[in-house]
């Protein structure tokens, strides 16, 4: 099973990545949103090991009292890791907007909340001179299970090449509390939501399908032959295709011989 990882080595690579990338861009501190869930806890643990706990700030950004248990978990992670935390209630700014533009659509409300959290993170990034650490994993990047310009926005993304099940394994190695590793993952778009319910698949099954499609380059028929339900495989492939826009910068209409994104091609770490 190639979803297996050596978490000791993965920790080595990712802590070096965090240190290196921050140093290149002149940062000593990292900042991230702490939700009390697995991904942000693992990212915070990596950052604490890479930069030292005092150089990591976790922002806990609940909507009112709707996520009290999550806030307690986030605070617990912050305490265990010894990193700084700060709790900011996003209800006033979210409510102000929806008072003027009412909706009962939970997805609209959830996306708005994700983007409010993003705007607070970027503001605090500038205030604290801290680079934003993304917490998106490979599973959600591939199926597009994230809010564009919301939780998908970051300065660097240490965990974007780890499937959810691999993040869980890394979490165990990093001594993330078992209660956090075990609890049902949620995007926190509304209270009581769980990812697996919304996606309609367990992360275990989803990751096995993604592994076959992405790592092994298997086709739909090959997956069906291997025993995966064709309808499920089709749905996963559609999720991947339909979310490509979330993984790219928007296309630029080409006019000149040398255009940004087309033939003006420089490395991200240019001169660093």
């Amino acid at each position, binding site marked *: 099973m190639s979803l297996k990882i050596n978490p000791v*080595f993965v920790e080595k690579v990712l802590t070096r990545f965090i240190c290196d*990338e921050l140093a290149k861009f002149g940062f000593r501190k990292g900042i991230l949103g702490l939700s009390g869930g697995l991904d942000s806890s693992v990212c915070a643990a990596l950052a604490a090991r890479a930069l030292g706990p005092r150089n990591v700030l976790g922002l806990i950004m609940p909507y009112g009292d709707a996520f009290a248990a999550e806030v307690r978990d986030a605070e617990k992670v912050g305490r265990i890791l010894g990193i700084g935390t700060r709790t900011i209630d996003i209800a006033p700014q979210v409510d102000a907007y929806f008072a003027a533009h009412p909706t009962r659509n939970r997805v609209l409300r959830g996306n708005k909340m994700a983007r409010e959290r993003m705007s607070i993170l970027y503001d605090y990034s500038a205030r604290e001179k801290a680079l934003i650490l993304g917490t998106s994993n490979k599973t959600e990047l591939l199926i597009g299970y994230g809010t564009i310009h919301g939780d998908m926005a970051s300065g*660097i993304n240490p965990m974007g090449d780890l499937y959810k099940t691999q993040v869980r394994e890394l979490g165990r190695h990093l001594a993330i509390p078992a209660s956090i590793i075990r609890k049902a993952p949620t995007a926190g778009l509304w209270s009581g939501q769980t990812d697996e319910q919304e996606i309609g698949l367990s992360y275990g099954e989803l990751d096995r399908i993604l592994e076959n499609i992405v790592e092994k380059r298997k086709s739909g028929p090959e997956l069906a032959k291997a025993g995966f339900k064709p309808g499920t495989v089709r749905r996963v492939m559609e999720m991947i295709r339909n979310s490509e826009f979330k993984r790219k910068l928007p296309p630029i209409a080409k006019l000149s011989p040398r255009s940004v994104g087309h033939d003006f091609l420089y*490395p991200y770490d240019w001169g660093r």
Partner: protein
Amino acid sequence: MKIALAQIAPRLGDVGRNLELHLEVMARARREKADLVVFPELSLTGYTLKDLAGDVALDPATDPRFGKITARSRGLSVVVGFMEESAAEQGLFYNSAAFIADGKILHVHRKVFLPTNGMFEEAKFYAQGRDFRVFPTPFGKVGLMICRDFLHYGASYVLYAGGADMIIVISAAPGRGVAGGEAFETSRMWELMGEAVSYFSTAFFAYANRVGIEDGVSFAGGSFIYGPGGHLLARAAYLDSEFLVRRLDLTAVREARTRWLFKRDEKPDIILRSLERVVRVAED
């Protein structure tokens, strides 16, 4: 003789800074009485250059920065990786390696096999070298390859058939695969192939890889040296910078070739004829 592998992390696109690093490492090599110091692929420029290639390319014969390395190689041999643009071929950028000894450039190898697939984009930006050859050095005949060159095993064969006593591969190999032990899974491939070539060629085999991270990609490190016939002489750390120095007993080549007679019994003429037929048939 003493060989040193400089497992460094160059700064991407900053020749000035990297030149300083090279001169520092060369001074250290001198202090540690090394005779030869080997830098990794594109050590003067960093690897992920894309459109920076033209900005950092230089002519080793005339560039004053490169001249500093050449000038400070008195009593020392140096293998350095750089982006080459010669006066004779303006606008063509080669991923090159120079062997410099005692103030003179003995040989420049231009990378022949430019990986251009998936994460690799070399042929999109660089011109392709067209030759593998051995050249005499103070330590016997040496053959140079750059990273992917080595993964095409005909290249090693040409250097072996040409009489190489030492095969040097400089590399900027990104690590991939984290299911295994204390290194990227791809490191194992280089080690296995290096060991195998040290048997096939009964020559010394030195692999200088870089470390550091560019655009999220970690270079794997783990530079190593094999003596003729599969003797692991040294291996550097994975992921971290290191300056690896080892004494080589050059008589080991003779010793290996009197024990394993592959070199004596080699038939490059038959190989060539057979290859020519293979190429002809493929073209038909």
